[in-house]
């Protein structure tokens, strides 16, 4: 059996460049008529030791590196979720068996002191009837972030379109303002408190989320728009008899679907996790999600924290999947489909 690496090296020594780096073209190189002086003096490239190693091990090395990175990033998530179901965690691994107690406490379902801090059910007294809505606070805080996304869709998508499609005065400025993460959440929060002191918490939070996360929506949608020939697509549709609004809804938006969906997911995830702004602006009413996380994290045992974080993971995954699914189906507003 032949060693493939030896065979390769030894097979055709004559076709290899000379080890001294001299020209493999014989004699006439430098003096040939019509060639510039010094032609042929550039030595052939000789791979160094490092490039020979990477050529052989490159694929394995990179695969290994990626695998290590993924494990490193995933491990905390796996450990946290595992811990959230553990009764005890004293050593290296969770112990004491499986329990849902941590989740119950984090969600405010357990009759403990933490209940009022959790995202439990809300009881309303309406016309003498007492109605209990389970997880109302949780749903409400998810809706706050979704409200921010909705504003971004209505405002951000047209801005991304205008900046990509048209040339107009102030275009550069609009683009810069739209994609700059204008101010940190904490500063925007203080500004909101000063300027709109009478605004209900929920409204202020939704507006603030949309302002803070707008750049992610604009950038994602803009890159979608930039990958198509907007003008020719639009003109094709119009020449075929579609009015401008119809063109926008049936042709332009569906073609930017990918960007819109990914922009919405990024905006929602970041808005749900936005702590600084929420912390400053929130005063009363149902709590934004990031504050729920914070309070569960700040003065609770690790297992309870793990449960709260796991809930956050679940919600992020669920909303992402929901937005994806909406994106897959929901883009045929009166189109040809």
């Amino acid at each position, binding site marked *: 059996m032949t060693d493939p690496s030896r065979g390769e090296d030894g097979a055709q020594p004559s076709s290899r460049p000379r080890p001294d780096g001299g020209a493999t073209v014989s004699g006439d190189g430098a003096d040939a008529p019509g060639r510039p002086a010094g032609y042929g003096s550039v030595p052939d490239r000789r791979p160094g030791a490092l490039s020979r190693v990477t050529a052989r091990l490159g694929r394995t090395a990179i695969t290994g590196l990626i695998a290590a990175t993924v494990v490193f990033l995933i491990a905390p998530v796996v450990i946290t979720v595992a811990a959230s179901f553990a009764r005890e965690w004293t050593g290296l691994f969770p112990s004491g068996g499986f329990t849902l107690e941590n989740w119950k406490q984090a969600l405010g379902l357990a009759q403990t002191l933490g209940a009022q801090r959790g995202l439990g059910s809300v009881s309303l007294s309406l016309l003498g009837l007492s109605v209990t809505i389970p997880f109302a606070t949780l749903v409400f805080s998810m809706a706050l972030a979704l409200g921010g996304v909705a504003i971004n869709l209505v405002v951000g998508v047209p801005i991304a379109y205008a900046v990509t499609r048209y040339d107009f005065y102030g275009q550069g400025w609009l683009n810069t303002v739209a994609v700059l993460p204008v101010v940190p959440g904490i500063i925007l929060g203080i500004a909101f408190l000063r300027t709109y002191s009478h605004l209900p918490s929920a409204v202020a939070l939704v507006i603030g989320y949309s302002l803070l996360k707008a750049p992610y929506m604009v950038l994602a949608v803009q890159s979608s728009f930039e990958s198509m020939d907007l003008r020719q697509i639009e003109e*094709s549709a119009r*020449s*075929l008899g579609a009015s401008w609004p119809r063109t926008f809804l049936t042709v332009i938006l569906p*073609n930017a679907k990918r960007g819109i969906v990914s922009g919405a997911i990024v905006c929602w995830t970041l808005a749900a996790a936005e702590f600084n702004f929420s912390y400053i602006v929130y005063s009363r009413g149902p709590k934004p999600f990031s504050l729920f996380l914070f309070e569960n994290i700040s003065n609770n045992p690790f297992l309870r924290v793990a449960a709260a974080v796991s809930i956050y993971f679940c919600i992020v995954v669920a909303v992402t999947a929901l937005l994806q699914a909406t994106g897959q189906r929901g883009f045929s507003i009166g189109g040809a489909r």
Partner: protein
Amino acid sequence: MTVQLANVTKEFGQTTAVDDVSLTVQQGETLGLVGPSGCGKTTTLRTAAGFETPTDGTVSIGGTDVTHVPPERRSVGLVFQSYALFDNMSVRENVEFGLKMRDVAADERAARARELLELLDIAELADRDPTTLSGGQQQRVGLARALAIEPEVLLLDEPMTGLDAKLKTRLQEEIGALLDDLDVTALYVTHDQSEAMVMCDRIAVMNDGRVEQVGSPDEVYERPANEFVADFVGTSNRLPATARDGRLDFGYATTAAPNGHEGEVTVVARPEAFRVGDGPFEATVRERFYLGEHVRAVADLPDGESVTLRVDPAEAPAAGEQVSLALQTDRVHVLSES
């Protein structure tokens, strides 16, 4: 339907993109708009489509003034270089789009789409996603989509520019024949003069926002109106000469003059107007390119000018060879200096 542009001028700020252009495309005719990039041919087409409103002048289709009618109410079909297919729809849905916008019933739409896809020889692609098609297939879909609405006029903007040479030739022949068969009135923009010659009944050569000449392909090639047209359409040798007493005097040689010119003139001679052999022009072959069906040679004349020759490979001179050239008087065109 006849399309008429009358004294159309389009300015963008300080720039005049189209300068007093008047053109008529007759019913069933394909008129080519050719010229270098930036000559205003695309703006002219966009004005005809309704995407640009002329600064001055009028556009009419079938005798009706449509200068201020928006594109969606003009009945024009557009075919673009980038194909501009709707990637969110299948091939069939793309073709049906215009009919849907006209509220044509679903079964009628489907029948019409099938008919067009068959006509363009892409019936088997009906359910495919446009992004999975090759450039040539996408352009067929684009054409089917534009034709589906039975437009009064078809506007094509560099439709073949992105295609490779062989496919281009095939599509040119096929689509040219199709446009003839369907008796479509079409305006065809291209920077490629040879494509215009294949596809178009008449050609308008544009430069700097103006129309330099309108004529059939052979008129434009054989009797160019000026040096620009002579230079842009095909390869041309332009030689300064003096016309006197029915002869052309080049200084180093004389030949018979084709018609009654006098004084300083420019002689436009195509590469095939020269014959290698016995003639009054003494020249030295500088370069020689073998192109298969013919040989292109560049030869230096005694006054330092050089001429491009098109020679049969069997008779082609070698590089460096001294040759005598004859100029076929009936194949040259003389432009008087103005």
